[in-house]
């Protein structure tokens, strides 16, 4: 609680600046909601392509997050616990997807997943195609969002006292048992944060996904297509629905996470 003597000019200034920033985030979204009528929303919800695109975004992003977590979590553990040559470079590589333009990321991914590439050919053997396919969408989403999971998990593991892992070893536990019963549960909150962030970031990805798979359309691409083909008025209701779904999921997961 603020006490009266805490209201200094500096605090007032910072509160004002912070408030302006919050407004910057909230106002455009609120504006979108206020400018959409109930009938427009109902119409958008009834549209099959809107519903399908939102569902596609949700499940591909979820699948990407879960699939890649099997690679990201062990890597995060190694980064938190071990020192090795060129570790800084590895840490840097992990952040690359955050800084490169996502369209460029999409082009890069496309290069690896076309049917001519070795990965494409290999996947073809199992009847999997990436381009224009949910598998490609998953790859593109994971590429741009994986740093969020790795970084959060690495920080989570680093915060687990190494002493506890050592004590567990002296108590006869194997390193694998120590990982699954001590390190992972104690880092779980951070990992969950990372999973939520990765999932949210992947779901909202546009640039990389549109290059790898214009169709089937994820929600961001559908919104974009409606905007370019039919204009703002027609794209806003779909955007409102997608944003609402995202926000609901986000709030639900944040609340669940607090209870973990």
């Amino acid at each position, binding site marked *: 609680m603020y006490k009266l003597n805490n209201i200094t000019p500096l605090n007032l200034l910072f509160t004002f600046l912070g408030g302006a920033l919050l407004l910057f985030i909230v106002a455009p979204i609120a504006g979108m909601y206020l400018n959409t009528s109930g009938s427009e929303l109902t119409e958008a919800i009834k549209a099959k392509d809107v519903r399908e695109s939102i569902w596609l975004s949700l499940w591909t992003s979820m699948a990407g997050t879960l699939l890649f977590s099997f690679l990201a979590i062990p890597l995060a553990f190694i980064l938190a616990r071990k020192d090795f040559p060129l570790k800084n470079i590895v840490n840097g590589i992990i952040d690359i997807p955050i800084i490169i333009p996502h369209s460029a990321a999409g082009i890069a991914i496309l290069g690896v997943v076309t049917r001519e590439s070795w990965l494409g050919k290999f996947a073809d053997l199992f009847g999997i195609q990436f381009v224009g396919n949910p598998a490609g969408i998953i790859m593109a989403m994971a590429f741009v969002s994986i740093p969020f999971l790795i970084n959060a998990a690495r920080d989570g593991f680093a915060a687990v006292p190494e002493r506890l892992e*050592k004590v567990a070893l*002296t108590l006869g536990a194997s390193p694998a048992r120590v990982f699954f019963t001590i390190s992972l549960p104690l880092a779980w909150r951070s990992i969950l944060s990372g999973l939520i962030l990765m999932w949210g970031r992947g779901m909202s990805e546009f640039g990389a996904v549109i290059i790898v798979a214009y169709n089937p359309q994820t929600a961001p691409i559908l919104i974009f297509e409606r905007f370019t083909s039919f204009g703002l008025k027609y794209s806003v209701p779909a955007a409102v629905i997608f944003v609402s779904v995202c926000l609901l999921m986000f709030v639900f997961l944040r609340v669940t996470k607090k209870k973990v």
Partner: protein
Amino acid sequence: MLKVENISLRAGTFELSNISFEVSKGDYFVILGVSGVGKSLLLESIAGLLNTTAGKIYLRGKEISEGKIQKRKISIVYQDSDLFPHLTVFENIAYPLKSKKERGIKEKVLKAAEQVGIEDKLNRKPETLSGGEYQRVSLARSLAAGNDIFLLDEPLASLDSKSKSELRQLLRKLNREGITIIHVTHDYEEAISLANKIGVMEKGALVHIASPEEVFHHPKSEFVAHFIGTKNFFKGNLKSLSQSDLKEFTTKNLKIYCLTNAADGESYLTILPEEISLSNEIEKGSSRNHFNGKIIDIAPAKLGFEIFVDAGVELIAIVSGDSKKDLQLDIGKKVWVNFKAASCKVYK
């Protein structure tokens, strides 16, 4: 049972050099030293948590220096924060049993809990335990692991005096029941009350390993000397003099005459502060040792005053209030320090 041979290691700014000692089954070995001398490093290297750069560790006759931590059957208990915070007391104690896929976990947990007196705390989470209870759970978990060597790293340091004394009792009991204990501490009373063997550690090396009586009656480190109230403690070199029954003890360029039958060579010298007299002029009497020095501090003692004189080394004399007044002793004043050669206690 456990033999440590010349182990050395470096971790950050800490360094251990050439540590050797042996612990027999049922021993209670206390490693005594100020904070930051590397006591915890030593324990962690025995437990296998740190790699040594040299030396060997033998357990039950077998070399284990390179062996896996989980196969050493050595438990380590820290001052605090070594229970798994996400598990209940029961789950903490059951942890080693589950690791070894043992049967009858519930009975074994209960037995270990009863041994340390925490059988009513099994459903609690570690954060709700008091300091003493916390350490008991940690000990119970080590018991459940079936390990018979416990390494205790300042286990009583964060406890209040009542819990401290209760836990000491428990540690003595566990030791009587056959647990071999290596316990590091900076608390000399703790060492006396528990140990049957003490190792004094200074600057990464074990400087004196002996029985508690020997360690405290013949201190070989300033640290121990300080604890038992020995004020004038010096390490130096003893040399016989020709045509004299006196010997010369040299410490930091100061030569002290001693009447002793100790053998020549590296030795320790103590002088009781009560045996040192101060004077404004050099004393003409039977005293063989006279040093001119400056008073650097004066502190009231139980009886009289302690006068600290810098005479090349720091010497402490106890004088009465009357003497202090008559001699006008004050900080900064130059005085003569006098004591008899026979007042010097010298030992190897």
